[in-house]
């Protein structure tokens, strides 16, 4: 099937009008390689990394083509073939994907160092000194994008076990993520708050590894499998009613451990159970039956909602975040045009493909500006960061927040904190 129904939903095709930059074109290239008509070339490798992996094509595809799987395999093939190999790329990938994101303590150590740099005035000093002008343009842009690291990480904020409030409805595990933990540990605390308020006993083990999404999306299949096994060991699916993710990108990957570990006799069955237990927080709350907050923290608040690609296209969680927002007293939900069009964050895409990412961000920020709202809500740390940077750079005065943060604030307007003090 190559009907082309995916084309209008593909951001890179829309921007370039080139078939090669469309899902249909990319699949044609993958097929040519599989059929032995084409070798994995450098151009092919670059194409696979020009794809955002936003999966909008999967929502559009009437034929049900599993692009996500084809895409992950293609990137793995690119890495295996070494067509993109360069010393610089190897060093960067070696340091990040293969080292930093493999052990959580390494990540928090780096986070602490960055926090010091930011808190002790190092960043202000460096930015003020003009020394940055000596750096290449790309590094300067990257420095400007560095997000503020949280004062406390999740394990300093959230107790390992928090009892449910009111009647206990479930026993759940909370996934704290890797980048999420460093940059948005407050969202993790808010998620715990919301779960507790909704009658869940919340278990949050410290030092959770990266879920492996970064690795699977970047062609590191074996490392992704390794991380999946560690996650299953740390949060045994048999022990919980649900395993809660609040990051759209991670959730989308976390729900497919069974595919990743299908050939692992020791883990295959547990991975299937794991997949069944992993729920996005919005999906879980609506399924459970949300206990609406009694009061509003900000009456008359106009909020718009940007859909994380992997939450909407990957997990098909589309209605529930909107339902959560509507459940907050005093919130008026204003629909964002093209709400499910990628913002350009796409994992580390904004770092690897800054030009296309920038175009997408401009488009998104333009729509946000047009709604004239005070808050834009989105359920993924990558999108949060991208929109914070984008709106700030464009001078659009909006607050960017996770829907669950807005909900938690409404709960806390009763003056109590069920899960701990907000960071």
């Amino acid at each position: 099937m190559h009907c082309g129904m995916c084309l209008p939903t593909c951001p890179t095709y829309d921007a370039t009008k080139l078939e090669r930059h469309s899902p249909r074109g990319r699949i044609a290239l993958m097929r040519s390689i599989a059929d032995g008509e084409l070798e994995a070339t450098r151009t092919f490798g670059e194409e696979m990394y020009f794809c955002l992996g936003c999966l909008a094509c999967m929502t559009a595809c009437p034929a049900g083509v599993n692009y996500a799987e084809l895409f992950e395999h293609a990137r793995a093939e690119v890495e295996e073939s070494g067509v993109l190999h360069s010393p610089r790329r190897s060093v960067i990938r070696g340091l990040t994907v293969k080292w930093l994101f493999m052990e959580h303590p390494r990540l928090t150590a780096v986070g602490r160092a960055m926090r010091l740099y930011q808190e002790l005035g190092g960043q202000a000093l460096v930015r003020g000194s003009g020394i940055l002008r000596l750096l290449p343009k790309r590094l300067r842009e990257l420095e400007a994008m560095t997000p503020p690291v949280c004062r406390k990480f999740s394990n300093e904020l959230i107790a390992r076990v928090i009892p449910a409030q009111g009647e206990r409805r479930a026993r759940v595990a909370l996934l704290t993520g890797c980048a999420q933990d460093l940059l948005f540990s407050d969202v993790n605390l808010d998620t715990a708050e919301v779960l507790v308020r909704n009658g869940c006993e919340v278990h949050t083990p410290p030092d959770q590894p990266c879920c492996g999404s970064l690795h699977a999306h970047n062609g590191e299949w074996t490392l992704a499998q390794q991380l999946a096994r560690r996650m299953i060991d740390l949060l045994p699916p048999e022990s919980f009613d649900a395993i809660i993710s609040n990051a759209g990108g991670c959730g989308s990957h976390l729900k497919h451990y069974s595919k990743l570990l299908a050939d692992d006799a020791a883990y295959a069955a547990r991975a299937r159970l794991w997949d069944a237990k992993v729920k996005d927080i919005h999906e879980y709350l609506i399924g459970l039956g949300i206990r609406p907050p009694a009061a509003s923290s900000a009456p008359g608040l106009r909020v718009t909602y940007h859909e994380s690609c992997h939450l909407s296209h990957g997990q098909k969680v589309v209605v529930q975040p909107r339902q959560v927002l509507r459940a907050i007293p005093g919130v008026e939900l204003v629909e964002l045009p093209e709400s499910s069009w990628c913002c350009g964050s796409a994992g580390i895409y904004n770092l690897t493909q800054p030009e296309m990412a920038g175009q997408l961000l401009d488009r998104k920020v333009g729509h946000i500006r047009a709604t004239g709202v005070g808050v834009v809500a989105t359920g993924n740390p990558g999108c949060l960061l991208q929109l914070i940077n984008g709106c700030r750079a464009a001078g659009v005065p909006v607050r960017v927040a996770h829907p669950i943060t807005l909900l938690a604030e409404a709960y806390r307007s009763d003056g109590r904190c069920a899960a701990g003090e907000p960071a």
Partner: protein
Amino acid sequence: MALDTATRGRLASLVGAENVLTAREDLIPYSFDGTAALRAMPEAVVFAHSTSEVADVLRWANEARVPVITRGSGTGLSGGSLPSPHGIVLCLTKMGRILEVDAANLTLLAECGVTTVTIADAAAGMGLFYPPDPGSMKISTIGGNVAENSGGLRGLKYGITRNYVMGLEVVLPDGEVLWTGNKCVKDVAGYSLRDLFIGSEGTLGVITKVLLRLLPKPAAKKTLVATFDQMDRAAQTVSDIIAAKIIPCTLEFLDRTTIACVEDFAKVGLPLDCEALLLMETDGHPAAVAEEAAQMESLARRNGAMEVRVAKDEAEANRLASARRSAFSALARVAPTTILEDATVPRSELARMIRFVEQVARKHGLRIGTFGHMGDGNLHPTFLTDERNTAEMARVHEAFKEIFDEAIRLGGTITGEHGIGVAKKEFLPKFAGDASMRVMRELRRVLDPHAILNPGKMFDP
């Protein structure tokens, strides 16, 4: 590829180097269109941004005797934009501007690369209506629609693309630019060249601008879904509706296999426990709409409909129509290759044709999903197969032949809206007859003496 440096340089001087693609990775994605099991590699893909660039490319190609395959979004279903050996693909998706919406004359002027949905939206934005709605309208281009004379779900009441084309700008193979038609409702000056180019499948000239006729937007619309336990009952309902002198804007039909695939994708709540489903839509004055909807409902019930459901609002109606448009692609959920048929018969012969198609499928041991525009006799029986299975593909081909023969015998046609292209080329002579074939050949030779435009398509010289 084989394109030499001098040729590449020449093309680059005409349209800019960035608009000439020759790398294998760039060409493979243009080696097919929406048609199953057809592939061929072009020598180059060339993008033009204006009529004058199209003229420059054609002038060069005509002199160099290089085949030119014009392409929009590549959604065709007869292989019309399939590349030809040693040819270039002239891709016009970047000619994407709407030039004018004239509310005083109810016309819209657009470049050929504008998508059908953009035209429909632009018209709707002015309270107007562009009715043709081919299944691929979200991405198909208007130039492609005109070149293929596309149909859609509203053919029964509103006709097809041809009925909405008032004027065309066409570039001839020698680079000369021709305008045919205008904003006048009446115009009988000379031969209607416009009608010659509509449906010419890229063989006579390259369509670069289209002047379209628009209608006022109907004031009201009602959409109904009726389900039946037998295909015949659905067909009889359609006949009864036509006999009752009702012309609905849509009378679409889906069989059990197609319903299951569409519902699996679109999740619009189609009932899965029936053999046939009719999607019926009436539009116009609110009073007429209410009356016709009630009549259609009662006719469906009289024919033993299991359930008749009325869409509660426009959003639901649009979801249902949009789900129906996905039918062809959705059938690929059950088989890797879906080869759809486009045979069309006079409406009175519809029930007979449906039964015949079922017999043929059974006889050749083929799986089939059938849907289509029941109101205008345009069926889409779709073979669910696998192109790697050579034996089965041969049986599919055999089944086609029998279906075409029967369609012709019943006074129908071998293609209602997809075109001849490559897929139906061998069946055209029998359908058209010697005299028509001779005139078509001579016309083509006069307009394209060096046979550079879409060679190998429709018929051979």
